[in-house]
């Protein structure tokens, strides 16, 4: 790991701290309690504590280009446990935002696609229509039968429906989205 000037962005820690409202980011002493309890750490390239370390060292590229920020499920276990009071899940969220703003979603293509489809479904129906989202997602990634083995259990547990259930005032929901788009 090179800490030469060209590699790092020394202001990235401060800007992330500001954007995520975390004034104790620099307090992290790498105890790893976040990683210890993380349910998705097994699938991460950098573990949550390493992401914080990357921020401390100013490794913007590595942090934004990591798979970890997209694997994070946002369950907030890390946040609840952090002895330094860092809201790690919020930091992850902010890193995803910056990654999207700067168009660096390479590692998180599917996550971004899923988020878009999810929000499209919410905009149309006022709530998410799971079957529709899954179908659209599978078509987009070119694997129509992806994860379909799970459908059986979800149908049995009445978690999936074949027709969307819409809220009554879908127009209001559309209004919210329009407002958000305007800024």
């Amino acid at each position, binding site marked *: 790991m090179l800490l030469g000037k060209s590699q790092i962005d020394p202001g990235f820690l401060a800007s992330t701290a500001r954007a995520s409202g975390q004034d104790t980011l620099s307090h992290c002493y*790498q105890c790893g*309690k976040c990683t*210890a*309890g993380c349910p998705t*750490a097994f699938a991460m390239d*950098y573990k949550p504590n390493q992401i914080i370390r990357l921020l401390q060292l100013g490794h913007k590229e590595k942090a934004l280009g990591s798979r970890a920020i997209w694997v994070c499920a946002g369950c907030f276990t890390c946040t609840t446990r952090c002895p330094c*009071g860092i809201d790690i899940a919020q930091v992850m969220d902010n890193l995803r935002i910056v990654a999207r703003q700067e168009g660096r979603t390479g590692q998180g293509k599917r996550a971004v696609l899923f988020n878009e489809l999810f929000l499209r479904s919410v905009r149309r129906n006022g709530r998410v229509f799971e079957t529709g989202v899954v179908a659209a997602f599978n078509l987009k990634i070119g694997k129509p039968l992806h994860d379909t083995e799970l459908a059986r259990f979800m149908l049995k547990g009445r978690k999936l429906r074949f027709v969307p259930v819409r809220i009554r005032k879908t127009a209001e929901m559309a209004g919210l989205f329009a407002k958000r788009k305007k800024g």
Partner: protein
Amino acid sequence: MSRIGVFICWCGSNIGGLLNCPAIAEEAASFPGVVFSTDYKYLCSDPGQKMIVEAVSGYRLDRVVVASCSPRLHEETFREMLKRAGLNPYCLEMANLREHCSWVHQHAQEAAQRKAVDLVRRAVAKAALLEPLSPNRIPVTKRCLVIGGGIAGIQAALDVADAGLEVVLVERAPTIGGNMVKLDKTFPTFDCSACISAPKMAAVAKHPKVKLYTYAQVEEITGYVGNFQARIRQRARFVDHTKCTGCGTCWTRCPTSVPDEFNEGLGKRAAIYIPFPQAVPNKPVIDATNCRQFAEGKCGVCEKLCPAGAIDYTQKDEIIEVEVGAVVVATGFGLFPWEKVYGEYGYGRYPDVITGMGFERLVTAAGPTSGKILRPSDGKEPKTVVFIQCIGSRDEAKGKEYCSRVCCMYTAKHAHQVLEKILDARVYVFYIDMRTFGKGYEEFYRRVQDEGVVYIRGRVSKVFQEGSKLVVKGADTLLGEQVEIAAEMVVLATGVVAAEGAHDVARMIGISVDKDGFFQEAHPKLRPVETHTGGVFLAGACQAPKDIPDTVAQASGAAGKVCALLSKDDLETDPLVSHVNNALCTGCLACQGVCPYRAIQPVTITERLPGRPPRERVVARVNEGLCQGCGACTVACPPGAVDLSGFTNEQLLAEVDAFCLCARTR
């Protein structure tokens, strides 16, 4: 008109590196009253002081301004020097050109230079109004009160008593010994803790100069340095210790059985009990809240069986008043109450998750398991033991930011003891950073690693019960991997916190506590055993987390301070104290309310005005022994009747005028 000499110090490059000292001296020569002004490389050095002494006689100076470092560092030095020069030591005024100017304005030389001149102008303005002051003398009671009978209190009491002074040692528990006697072995030398503290306990109890009160509490301390009055409440033991022989019939036959706090609740004790076999005094007390005789009015087994007839259910608390000249506070520490906040480790619901102190009681031969490491849940020997460090230390989220200092080492010792007592055991220690600061500590850490203790760098996220095992979910941050261990016992290294009731003790004595509840020392580096209250000293972990050697060293240090104080027949009081002008005082006592040292009391005076009958009136009076010269009363006094010598209203206004003059001329 006074004749003022101004001396500007370079402090090597500390001041001279930034400020033009000769220029300041030149400008100061023109200030009103200044008859001599010069600069020098190191004024505090011998030749520097000599130069000032010579200038005082050569130019017949009667006031001296030294512009150098903080008065906190060298005011005493220069006062002594003034004495040698034949001047009153309080005819000195200092301007702080180092901490207040050159050190903090390194990037603004020109402005700093102007500020330095202003600071000197201010000092000169005040110096012109300085009055010679002389200290008063107060007598000293040659007796010392030591509060707390742990190793710190015992050591301090022994050292003071060995110097031939009387000591009153007060302990709130039924026995002296404190936390140290609960420990099994001490790191890193494996000295048996009870074996090395028991002789000291016996020595202090037998010492002819020591009066020991156990099961007693200091309720009130009044007075001031050299002249304190302490009120001690001797709690009723319901056992007459003059008759009791300590035979033990009572506690073996008592029908009540309650969790034993001395064994961290891992064992049981009777309602009439001695905390442990080597307790001093080795005579029991009755725990009235758990005793059947007190709860139900019937039982009386101990009274019937006692061969000495020492049981007395009607005994009452006793109040003892003592006069002492000095107080050593050695009230020790508590352990972090982890059950309240560490939900992730089970809030104390899992019996096999124990604390370090609990482990000490398990592993000690005098403990409830006779020294066998057994699981509290099923009494089986654990084969996999996980230690988690920093429980309630370095944890902002749980409200404790500081490092408790001792946990790294006691955990290393525990890890060693598991391997020593349980063959084929596996021991894991989760740590954040290892802090092995003492003599032989790092070597000890190495040694336990060689013995096979596995250190994992990371904090544990969760501990939960799965069957008879405890699953420990952690991470190895050096590897960047998650770790899961099926443990049979988990030991939490709970951190050191201020002792229960420390705040009340501080309030009672009139000393301050820091943000974590530990007692505040007068200076973190140079006055670590003194408090801001004269005659009150600190020993041991009541001041900050400490290991045994540091505690003993500080206790001896406090004893040394006590001996130095009590070696005098009378004391000089600092003349920089407040005075009340009776003619102006209306007796509103606003000053009493703001005084942090309880130095102000109302007194009744008889006022005789010409042409009127004498009348009695209440005014405030400052106790010069207690007053520390903070000046809060002078600000609070509505008619301006209180004035602080050395910082009089007139002097302070002259300083303000000098600053305003600076602002106007610019």
